[in-house]
């Protein structure tokens, strides 16, 4: 039980007064970010990332910084449920499925019950995912220590093929937006030879496009423009959460243990294989509807219909950090931003982290336990406060959010050009989102582009250009094979459907 021992050491790191304080600050900021339109987990973390630059310079500061940022992420995951249930506006894409039963419950005057169910199941989903991380990540990391460039490239390939195979968006739109991400990553200095690429003589483009700017623009500005179309006012149910509703719901919740467990399993799987929290929440909702006794009542305000997507979304959101810390491959856009943070603080994400930065890794894992407990307490006690934020008129909150985005974009590199690029990415985000081009693969491609290319080139350099290197042994061969299976999954499922119809 070496994991338990390491975890206890992690708790010793995470339980310092400073880190506990940062945890609460992170959670509160995260919930606010999750509640506000236009700010979400990914761009919220991206905007606040520059504030941690100086924090990470101090001894032990990297751990504090990751605790702050990951708690913002947990907070945002919790916050999404508040707007879905009270206002029928999913604050985050993964809480769309929560609106199906959450909002009807609120309309029936049972908002408190829905909120308690959502928060509690989020917490349980996250807890199960953290337990999975605790025991699975050291194994994966020690396994990955043996990885060479070919293996790493095959893992990257798997990540991106999973997007093609699992996304709900049209396949070629996924491919196009992913490849645009890679192309944006390729701008600037070639990681292997140092040649300038795609800069066309412009000094501004020497360093390429920063993915943080892309995240802030695409998700922040783009989201605000989209929200605007719906009009300027939010109408919502009142947020009352008294102790009685909480206790009543907690008494009811154990009945849905199987739904929770299924949701957590779907979530963990979808988070580790980068499908992400959003499809996980939909899948879990669908599965729960099929298996539940009250399946036909789903959509009219069933507590179970809140439990299913919330457990899955939180489990997926949490377990998306597993491939990030063990392999250096993030499972979601927010995990990608956290990975970017690690790189900026001078840490090399990947299996070596478990050997060289034990305090950091186990501090982070311990903070996941503590952060989610802190999160549950904060959201249960402060819901009315957070809901009040949404009552601030849009014409006041929107310009302030855009100013925050601009400050975030500027502080990444202290460059005004980045602020302009943020606006450009915002317009792009508006168009792409409306035309259902998925944004997550684009962002992940910008983050991983250089590393994917470097490992690809190292691998084929070793094999003198022979692509067979990606099938050269059982491990790399099966990962590549799985990747190709996922890549062609839309085609395969089409063929299967055709054959069935004929039979």
């Amino acid at each position, binding site marked *: 039980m070496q994991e338990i021992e390491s975890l206890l050491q992690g708790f010793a790191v995470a339980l310092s007064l400073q880190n506990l304080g940062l945890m609460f600050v992170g959670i509160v900021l995260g919930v606010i970010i999750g509640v506000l339109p236009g700010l979400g987990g990914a761009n919220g973390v991206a905007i606040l990332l*520059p*504030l941690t630059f*100086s924090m990470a310079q101090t001894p032990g500061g990297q751990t504090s910084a990751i605790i702050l940022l990951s708690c913002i992420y947990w907070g945002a995951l919790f916050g999404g449920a508040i707007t879905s249930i009270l206002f029928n506006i999913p604050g985050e894409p993964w809480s769309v499925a929560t609106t199906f039963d959450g909002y009807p419950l609120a309309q029936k005057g049972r908002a408190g019950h829905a909120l308690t169910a959502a928060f509690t199941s989020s917490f349980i989903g996250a807890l199960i995912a953290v337990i999975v991380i605790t025991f699975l990540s050291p194994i994966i990391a020690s396994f990955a220590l043996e990885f060479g460039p070919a293996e790493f490239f095959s893992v990257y390939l798997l990540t991106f093929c999973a997007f093609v195979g699992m996304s709900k968006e*049209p396949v*070629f*739109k996924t*491919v*196009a937006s992913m*490849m*645009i991400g*890679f*192309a944006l990553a*390729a701008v600037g200095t*070639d990681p*292997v*030879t140092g*040649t300038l*690429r*795609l800069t*066309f003589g412009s000094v501004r483009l020497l360093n390429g496009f920063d993915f943080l700017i892309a995240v802030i623009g695409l998700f922040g*500005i783009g989201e*605000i*423009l989209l929200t*605007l*179309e719906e*009009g*300027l006012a939010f109408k919502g149910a009142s947020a009352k959460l008294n102790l009685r509703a909480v206790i009543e719901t907690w008494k009811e919740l154990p009945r849905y243990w199987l739904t929770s467990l299924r949701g957590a399993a779907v979530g963990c799987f979808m988070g580790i294989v980068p499908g992400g929290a959003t499809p996980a929440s939909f899948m879990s909702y669908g599965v729960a509807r099929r298996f539940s006794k009250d399946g036909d009542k789903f959509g009219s305000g069933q507590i179970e219909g809140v439990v299913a997507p919330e457990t899955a979304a939180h489990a997926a959101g949490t377990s998306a950090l597993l491939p990030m810390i063990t392999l250096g491959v993030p499972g979601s856009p927010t995990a990608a931003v956290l990975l970017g943070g690690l790189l900026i603080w001078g840490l090399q994400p990947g299996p070596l982290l478990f050997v060289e930065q034990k305090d950091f890794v186990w501090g982070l894992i311990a903070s996941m336990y503590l952060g989610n407990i802190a999160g549950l307490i904060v959201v249960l006690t402060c819901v009315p406060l957070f809901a009040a934020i949404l009552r601030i*008129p*849009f*014409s*006041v909150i*929107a*310009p*302030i959010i*855009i*100013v925050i985005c*601009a*400050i975030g974009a*500027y*502080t990444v590199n*202290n460059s*005004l050009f980045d*602020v*302009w690029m*943020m*606006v450009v990415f*915002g*317009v792009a985000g*508006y*168009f*792409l989102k*409306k*035309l259902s*081009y998925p944004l997550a693969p684009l962002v992940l491609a910008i983050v991983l582009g250089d590393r994917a*290319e470097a490992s*690809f*080139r190292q691998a*084929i*350099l070793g094999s003198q*250009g022979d692509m067979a290197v990606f099938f050269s042994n059982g491990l790399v061969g099966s990962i590549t094979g799985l990747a190709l299976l996922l890549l062609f999954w839309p085609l395969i499922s089409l063929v299967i459907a055709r054959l069935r119809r004929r039979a």
Partner: protein
Amino acid sequence: MSEQSAERPAFRLKTAELAVAGFFFLLGAIVIFDSVRLGAKWAADGPQPGYFPFYLGCLICAASAINGVMALRLSGDRNTAFVGRRQLKLVLSVLIPSAIFAGLVGWLGIYVSAVLYVGLFMRWLGRYAWWKLAAVALGNSVAFYLIFEMWFKVPLPKGPIEALLGLD
């Protein structure tokens, strides 16, 4: 959604799809062009710098071409409004001031631009009384100044007015 269909479209889905697909195709072509210039082949010391981007460009062009064809085949009744006129007006009424704000930051600094931007935004879209928007706009910038310059010691761009006040 019913509101949306009743509204006169500013432009339709097909136009938007084709524009984005065309734009992406162009980007792909630029990537291919530059990759070929750098050399996208296999040299004596391994793959040339353009090797990887060349295939990216090809994939972008191919995927965009397919997306373009799909858009062309969009039938009449599915070719709904991409954005309604009223919606577009709202979006532009936020986008244009935001773009101007981003431009002003370099000249006036972020704090003064933010005061003007938040204030005018509230005036145009919210029709607030002057004293209310002055309070929110000034309070917002002062709060950001305290948070970033004092607390986190992150310097943000400043302009002539801060220099005049001696806050630089």
